[in-house]
């Protein structure tokens, strides 16, 4: 089965610095990956996704990197802002399966 984990449960960064949140997955058949942000009391909110035929994808202030060799992906947030403080989850899916397997989350705290 799939298991998805994160390297650090908490991450604190200074406002304006870049943040990097890492995630590892176990299923080599995983071919779709997605990052969600969850603020307190709210549901997960989509940030960015990437398919396995890519190794990098950029959005607005965010970049996802995928290394299939070591089954690792990362989320980079540029110029981190106080509003970025939240729990960040990576999730993975494989083949035609629609279900996402979520990692355990990293709490990002942006310090003033």
């Amino acid at each position, binding site marked *: 089965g799939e298991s998805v984990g994160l390297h650090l449960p908490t991450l604190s960064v200074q406002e304006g610095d870049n943040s990097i949140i890492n995630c590892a997955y176990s299923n080599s058949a995983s071919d*779709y990956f*997605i990052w*969600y942000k969850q603020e307190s*009391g*709210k*549901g*997960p*909110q*989509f940030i960015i*996704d990437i*398919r396995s035929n890519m190794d990098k994808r950029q959005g607005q202030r965010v970049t996802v990197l995928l290394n299939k060799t070591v089954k690792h992906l990362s989320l980079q947030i540029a110029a981190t802002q106080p509003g970025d403080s939240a729990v960040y*989850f990576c*999730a993975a*899916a494989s083949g035609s*399966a*629609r*279900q*996402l*397997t*979520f*990692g*355990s*989350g990293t709490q990002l705290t942006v310090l003033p």
Partner: protein
Amino acid sequence: EPEVTQTPSHQVTQMGQEVILRCVPISNHLYFYWYRQILGQKVEFLVSFYNNEISEKSEIFDDQFSVERPDGSNFTLKIRSTKLEDSAMYFCASSALVSGANVLTFGAGSRLTVL
């Protein structure tokens, strides 16, 4: 921006009681899901629903759970006889039919407390 709406936001129930959690997915989405999140833990998949039937379910989704799309807009999760360990935040989600991608849009969740 279209959103998934869930009711109730919080429900407290006695162990053994039946609970129905309701969701209104995004109107042009075809896939519907329930996930749950026990306090402080990861988001766990329960079930997915497509074309009026369950397409995938997890081991958590046992005979105590059922889903239904009673009309063109609502999607419900029923827990027949609640247990203490069913206490969690339950998230409904929906997604469009897009090949190679599956961006789920989540609702704000329904917090279930079983006493």
